[in-house]
């Protein structure tokens, strides 16, 4: 029972690491050059601070996830992992909500502020950003599960004592 739990948590952490890494890679590689009337501009992820924040946070979390995979199971650092899980889950939720807010404006525009949607002109860039955000959302869900699991094992060790 404890063995399956360990394998399952390891697998979950590995998948979470993969999703954060792919979110970073997809977002970084999204660029498209478009011509509107006489202007030729290039849409990159670094134009928007929200997407830059998303990339930075996901990069930090993927480094953390990579390091946690190599932690031996009886080490005392698992208590630190519980606290760091909390911090990084909170950072991930804030980054995904910021990126989603800006992406929504890019897709639908804001008529009151006079902001036109840009997705029609740079469709490939828009789709790639959407893909990165979907992968980022999956990583948020996975890290939330990992965080709840860590919280549960720390605060309610009665179940651990039974097994």
């Amino acid at each position, binding site marked *: 029972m404890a063995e399956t739990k360990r394998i399952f*948590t390891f697998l979950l952490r590995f998948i979470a690491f993969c999703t954060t890494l792919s979110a970073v890679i997809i977002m970084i590689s999204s660029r498209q050059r478009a011509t509107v009337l006489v202007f030729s501009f290039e*849409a990159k992820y670094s134009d928007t601070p929200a997407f830059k924040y998303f990339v930075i946070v996901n990069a930090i979390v993927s480094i953390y996830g990579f390091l946690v995979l190599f932690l031996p199971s009886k080490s005392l650092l698992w208590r630190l992992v519980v606290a760091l899980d909390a911090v990084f889950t*909170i950072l991930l939720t804030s980054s995904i*909500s910021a990126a989603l807010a800006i992406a929504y404006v890019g897709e639908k525009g804001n008529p009151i502020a*006079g*902001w036109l949607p*840009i997705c029609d002109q740079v469709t490939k860039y828009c789709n790639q950003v959407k893909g990165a955000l979907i992968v980022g959302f999956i990583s948020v869900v996975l890290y939330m599960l990992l965080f709840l699991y860590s919280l549960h094992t720390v605060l*309610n060790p009665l179940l651990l004592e039974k097994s």
Partner: protein
Amino acid sequence: MALQSGEKLPMFIGHIWSKQKSRWTLLGLRLLAFLAAAAATLVMVLNKQTKTFVVATIGTTPVNLTLTAKFHHTPAFVFFAIANGLVSIHNLVMIMMDLLGSKFDYKGFQFPMIASLDMLNLALVSGGANAAAFMAELGKNGNSHARWDKICDKFGPYCDRGAGALIASFLALALMLLISFLSILNHKLVNSSSHNSHNNIIALPN
């Protein structure tokens, strides 16, 4: 006041951090967090500004365009208002639990529930506050690459009130972080019921 076996604390912490003082400190912090989150919600929901622009002049009569900036035009601000509303309700319920609910305990589930709910609401309020912060940054600075103009020079008071709501929400976020940390520390340090003694060992998750 009980100290667990295996945990050595300096003697002066035991004298300073008595159970009554810690309980009232935590209650005071929760009250502040509730007030901050409720203030953020209210200021954002009641945020509205109407302005008339002169767009063109036909002959001698000017053509006016009246624009109203409301919070529900922006989904990020709607999420911000809902998240802060939920967090203020959570803090209110926690205050009630602290004051009145010491007999609602089912097999010692009360403390893990409070800790988990605190953390979850912390994540919620951080998401809401950050989304609104980036939208506000976009409104203040615009985005030259996407040809989006900044709007804070036209709707000054709307932007100022939004900034106030954001500050209150970040204050609530910091307070909730402190509250989560302190409530877990408080429960570990000051634990008087004897049947919870095996709960005091922080177990390794593997």
